[in-house]
């Protein structure tokens, strides 16, 4: 029958964009077209290094029992930093739970991130004026919220967009589908940013979907899908910026698949050696996004070992200060549990709070040690 030419035999249905190779080489015109200045390059580099240092610190704290389960960024710094760098403060950012780099760039302090991973809801208190949404634990649900926020911006004739981050695993949830479908129908100004880090915990990308690429899923919704080298901060910046501009200009949504790799465990509760070969991880280490940008900067004479040392020192100090603050935080009052449920506390919560307070009072003001 006429349909004998199956999908699998087709040419790739979406473009793959790369500017900066693993060797730190880039076509100069491509770089010029980015419209970025040396200070931008350095800012990108700074955020990527910051994310890695924060990861290291958080992992150490977790191992010492001073932080809860933590989800590292390691390996995905370019994807997060390149994309978030393309945002304006007017844009909405909807994270999953792994976007510490992007959130930090958008005004959330290291302290707040530590609070969140330390198990305090206060870590999710977005600073006034910052248009981020909270960490989203249930996979893919934030996609619909982002579409709604972007759609509202369009209705209100605002020039803001929304970007929403999610993983390769998230593309299997019904919410991914419903979100992209709504965005297509209502031409919402939203950028769907998939960090395809090849795994959803232990489940490899090939087990997640039989689709050749994640980017081509956009075809089901009538808009554009692009694959980009997620370890190439230039290419990520470029495709995200263009997608945002298109959205702002009324051109509707875009699905970006940033092809990257999680270089370590899913979270500190995970053990990657159970489900993937060491060679695979080694292979991806060769494509390290930070090393790559550093090579480029060095080749351009924009970076030196002393600058590197200084940067690391500065960032470590910044993060160390956040850790000190974090560890000095007083315990939150128990009212915290009750007061954010409704605009006004109903009688049952008032009574239950009262009961809890009485109980604590009976034990010298805190829970009895058992």
């Amino acid at each position: 029958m006429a349909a004998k030419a199956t999908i699998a035999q087709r040419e790739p249905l979406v473009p793959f964009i790369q500017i900066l190779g693993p060797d730190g080489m880039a076509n100069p015109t491509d770089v010029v077209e980015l419209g970025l200045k040396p200070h931008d390059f350095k800012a990108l580099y700074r955020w990527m290094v910051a994310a890695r240092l924060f990861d290291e610190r958080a992992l150490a704290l977790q191992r010492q029992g001073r932080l809860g389960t933590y989800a590292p960024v390691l390996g995905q710094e370019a994807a997060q930093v390149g994309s978030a760098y393309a945002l304006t403060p007017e844009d909405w950012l909807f994270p999953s739970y792994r976007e510490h780099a992007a959130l930090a760039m958008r005004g959330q302090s290291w302290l707040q991130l530590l609070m969140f991973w330390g198990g305090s809801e206060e870590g999710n208190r977005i600073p006034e004026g910052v248009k981020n949404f909270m960490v989203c634990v249930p996979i893919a649900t934030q996609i619909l919220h982002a579409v709604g926020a972007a759609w509202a911006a369009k209705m209100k004739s605002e020039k803001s967009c929304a970007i929403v981050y999610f993983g390769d695993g998230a593309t299997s949830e019904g919410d991914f589908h419903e979100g992209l479908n709504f965005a297509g129908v209502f031409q919402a100004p939203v950028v769907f940013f998939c960090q395809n880090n090849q795994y959803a915990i232990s489940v490899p990308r090939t087990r997640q979907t039989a689709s050749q690429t994640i980017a081509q899923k956009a075809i089901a919704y009538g808009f554009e899908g692009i694959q980009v080298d997620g370890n190439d901060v230039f290419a990520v910046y470029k495709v995200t910026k263009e997608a945002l501009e298109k959205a702002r200009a009324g051109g509707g949504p875009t699905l970006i698949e940033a092809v990257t790799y999680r270089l370590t465990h899913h979270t500190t509760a995970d053990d990657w050696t159970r489900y993937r070969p060491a060679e695979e991880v080694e292979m991806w280490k060769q494509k390290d996004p930070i090393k790559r940008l550093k090579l480029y900067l060095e080749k351009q004479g924009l970076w030196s070992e002393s600058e590197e040392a200084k940067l690391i020192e500065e960032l470590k100090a910044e993060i160390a200060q956040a850790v000190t603050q974090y560890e000095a935080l007083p315990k939150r009052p128990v009212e915290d549990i009750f007061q954010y449920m409704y605009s006004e506390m109903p009688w049952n919560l008032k009574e239950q709070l009262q009961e809890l307070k009485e109980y604590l009072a009976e034990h010298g003001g805190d829970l009895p040690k058992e």
Partner: protein
Amino acid sequence: MPQMNLVQAINDALKTEMRHDPTVLVLGEDVGVNGGVFRATESLYKEFGPDRSIDTPLSEAGIVGTAIGMALNGLKPVAEIQFDGFLAPAFDHIISHAARIRWRSRGRFHVPLVIRAPYGGGIRGPELHSESPEAHYAHTPGLKVVIPSNPYDAKGLLIAAIRDPDPVIYLEPKRLYRAFRAEVPEGDYIVPIGKARVAREGSHVTVICWGAMVPVALGTAEKMSAQNVSVEVIDLRTLVPLDVETVIESVKKTGRVVILHEAPKTCGFGSELAALVNDRAFEYLQAPIVRVTGPDVTIPTAQLEDYYLPDVGRCVRGINKVLSY
């Protein structure tokens, strides 16, 4: 004052509030051009256009999920879920998000969202068109649950729900949509969320009910009065936050309680009411509380539906049971 039936009152509430507040909009399946399968959104499309009377794709998680996003970006969406049974595909967004965003963000964001859905039996609907899922939402902290039983309340409660800063599950007893007409003021008024109504005063026994069970309770009260039994009927109007004072006051007066609801008995909202009465008026109870509810089965479709639904006869039996204890 104009006479309206319940669905007209809902339509009037939507119109009133959309005129009053440009951030209010409705979205859902067939709510625009078609005016809703029950005509609850009739003529909104004409008056407010496709951007405020939005036909969505067939996707309940999509409707509620995007409405949450709109709500946090400054709009006041009123989402329609076409039938009670189709709240389930949106369940995750209702309980894991709408109900929690104030909590999750420490009050930085909140979700002024109303989710309207027709609920309950009595219209000879096909499967999943006659469910009473109120207990699911009453068990979810962060949600308010509102159920009107007459046109006046329907309008006033819906306007209150739209103005409420918290997410409200607004369940409409579809069996009463066109059951009767009553006076409904024009324009702006609210019936406050969290206040029950003593629908009929009485002294021997209290019947607690809501939605389409209110006329059943009133019919029962009327019937019992012929036998000199004085039945007090409490129409809760709001399940969460519950007007516990009105309930307990009545129980203290009568000492006998019948709880009447359509949902299956086990873990229905009736069990919460029974537990609360036990908590707060134990010493006043002169008989065990009786729950007259749907049995613990899937509500049957048309042919056997009436055998499932509590009716005056079963309510009478319940009252006789508490009286004869």
